[in-house]
């Protein structure tokens, strides 16, 4: 499903080039899960952003299913359009926070996300229930707890029926107990729908539940 070859990415900070990722190659097969670990600043978020096209790599190649993205191929607007199309219906992204539109209720958020992915409306309540927040559909993001927000965010992602989920510390701001409960949901539904999961986390326990592990703090030689 996901193949990354010789990926390189750096930033310039105060005129100095700062390499973040270099020569990274790995592969995740369909339906599998990969935990991306590493200390803070090691490039976990950067990697996930590269994998959904929110950042562009300096070197290397990314393949998602039949889509292949090399450094300059496809280029420009065509590339942006392809990535947008992928994010729209194939790749679901969950961040640590701020996954919901504050002006919409939880149910409306799920409906909007599903709508953008081209899914028929009507399933939002079902997804909210599936993630254990079925009775909070009419509340706004600021009216529920952090854990409930993340459950709703997962409901949104699942409602779009993605082939790949990129989760950037989805439980990062939750307490142990809540984090486990949210993770339970995540893995359960992931198994059920058979989608591929890439999960960036500091949390060894959470990482342990994944099929594969990628540690960005160490030299990149994983497969």
């Amino acid at each position, binding site marked *: 499903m996901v193949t990354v070859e010789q990926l390189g990415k750096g930033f310039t900070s105060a005129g100095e080039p700062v390499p973040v990722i270099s020569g990274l190659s790995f592969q995740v097969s369909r339906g599998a899960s990969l935990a991306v670990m590493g200390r803070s600043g090691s490039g976990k978020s950067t990697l996930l952003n590269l994998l959904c096209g929110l950042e562009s790599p300096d070197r290397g190649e990314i393949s998602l299913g039949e889509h292949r993205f090399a450094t300059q191929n496809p280029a420009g607007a065509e590339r942006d359009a392809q990535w947008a199309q992928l*994010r729209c219906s194939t790749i679901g992204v969950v961040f640590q926070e701020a996954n919901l539109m504050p002006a919409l209720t939880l149910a409306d958020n799920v409906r909007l996300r599903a709508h953008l992915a081209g899914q028929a409306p009507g399933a939002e309540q079902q997804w909210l229930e599936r993630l254990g927040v079925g009775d909070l559909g009419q509340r706004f993001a600021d009216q529920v707890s952090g854990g409930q927000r993340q459950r709703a965010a997962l409901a949104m992602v699942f409602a779009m029926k993605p082939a790949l989920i990129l989760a950037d510390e989805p439980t990062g701001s939750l307490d142990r107990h809540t984090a486990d409960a949210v993770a339970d949901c995540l893995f359960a539904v992931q198994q059920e729908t058979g989608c591929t999961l890439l999960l960036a986390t500091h949390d060894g326990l959470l990482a342990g539940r994944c099929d594969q592990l990628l540690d960005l703090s160490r030299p990149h030689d994983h497969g």
Partner: protein
Amino acid sequence: MLAKAVFSHYRRHPVQLLALVVMITLATMLWTGVSVLTDQARVSLAESEAAVAGRQQVVRSDGQAVTVNDFALLRTQGQCVAPWLEVQRPGAEGRVIGIDPLALGCFGGAVPGGTAGEQLGAPFMDISEAVSLAREQGYDSRLSLLMPDNVTLLPVGYRAQDFSMGPATGELADSFLLNLDALSVLVLLITGLLVRSVYRLGLAQRRGSFALLQRFGVPWGRLQWLLVLELVLISSLAIMPGLWLGSQLAGLLGGGFAQALDGLFDVTLYAGSQTAVPWSALWIMLALVMLVCLSDWLLPRHWQRGMRAKRLWRWLLPALALGVGLLLVALAPALWWVFAGTTLVLLGVGTLTPVLLAALADGLGNRSLHPLGRWRLRELAVMLRQLALPVVALQLAVATVLAVQALVTTFEATFDDWLDQRLAAPFYLMVPEDADGHRGAQLLAELDGVGPWQRVIGGRVSLLQDSGQRLPVDLFAVAPIGPLLDQWQLLDSLPQPWQRLEEGGLMVNEQLARRQGLRPGDSLTVRLDEQQIEGQIAGVYADYGRPAGEVMVSADRLPEDFSGTSESLSITPGEHSIQAIQRDLEALWGVDNLSVNDNASIRQLANRVFDQTFMLTRAISVLTLALAAVSLLIMGWVFFTTRAWTFQLLRVWGLPLQGVRSQLRRLAVTLTLAVAVAALPLGIWLTWVLVSRINPLAFGWSLPMAVYPLFWLELGVLCAGIGLVIGLLMHRQLKPGAPPPVSASGITGEER
């Protein structure tokens, strides 16, 4: 130390400080500009009227034009007279006036033409130069003999007459100035709102640090004092350049105004070039800034909390203010009621509009089946609530522009109508005192091929009231009742009013009708010297010139020996030349050099003054609109920095960057269009207040109320344009490389 902690906010947020300073400066500039202009325009027009009305000239009783011989004769008899030679140069050069500074010596302080006459600046020159200019170039010239107004005794064969060079636009100008005053109050209100919005924004961000300081044991009272001190400092610094800029603005706009006045009255009346900085504006602005920024403290704290908590108050209080205000304006017996009522209405509307529009957007959002549409409407509601103050400021500004446009256009049209009415026919000539106007009229009646003409006799008569008392009114007698009267605007009439007038009916002007409660169909008795005329009122006509009541009758009903105060003939030459008609009349009356007035040039001069004044008013209202738009942009920008992440989220969800940007543009345009729509009823109401409430209360007559839908459309397009510009500028916060929303800085209820 504490002060440092409090003030350090603006060191960390210099842009906010800048925005506050700029807002106060611009607000001061606008308001100073408007008030300086209004004051000066008022002084100028008062002076010009005095100059026109107060001047007297000596004329010959036999109607002949005065000559240098008359001047010599009068001087040898010890009369104080001075020559005034108008030389008409062709085209843009305009007329020059030759005067004799020596002869003016006996006028004492009351020199005609003001001090300009003594200095011989344009358009004045020494009379000998003017004479040679007229002779060598063959320009038309006309000699008048001026005299001080306190002289009563003149030698036989001469009499005094008002010396006027243009139409006295008196009340129309006054009315316009009063409306300009109302406009400046409105401008003050709008700018107050803008200053408040910027200040409250900063205060909201500082709430956290204030809470911290309070926790460290600093009493709230001390913090308040520091904030007051800070605000006084900032506003004094910001107001000073505003005052200067305002007087510059007034000078700039006033320049054209001054030129127009000079052209009309031949005297430098408008003091626009030497604008003094109006220090009173300093205190007014300071008080305004304090009031709008800190007014919340005036309410007891538990009230504030209660009002914030109870939704009912948010609706009820402004709705109450609105209702009371509307009632006050509708029933107002005096001018200040109207002003107080209008203020209440504006406050009510200003508070209700964002709440109502947001509720509407939310309601529409709930109904929208399209998820993206629902999101947009909800986001619009959030923007309306968060940007309430600049939104209301824009609404008021748009309403002001609407009202001013309608007012100015109405004034222009009305003024035109009024000139049409009073300056019917292309020419008019005054009938000399000893001449027989009736015979002149007969001559015209027997002249084949002459166009429409009429004889007009003015006089003073009195109305016999039911109580037996006599009410002095002006008389306007005209005959024949013909096509020249078609221009007259009848506000109310019986069927076939002109025929009724011809057959013995009467007409009254609006002022008289309002004051005496007269209606068409009522009977009226007009008392002349000996006789009286009775008749039914056939119509009420609009008369914007003067405050005086006036009765119009057919001149044929006047007795032969009726002596009016003035008599004139309005003439359309038709197949004849006006010179030929003039010669015929001169022969008939045995005079030479009758003076014929060309109505077109009088009208042209008068229009120039009003054009300038109107342009100025438009400029001010458009500036206000621009200021409101800029403030919405600033506030929108600041607001959007906390909101851009939701748009980034759309991008994460697969909307292409172009799509996200177009959502942003649509949102901004919808916002400003909603504001424009909300401003429409307010603007129409304001127009109505200006023409139908303020004018009748101040002057006794109303202006016709007109609406201009095409202009609404223009304004709507303009507002959409403002929205588009705001949206396009916000694009900058949605750069392609911008980071995805990794964290929202604390989601709170304020975000929706």
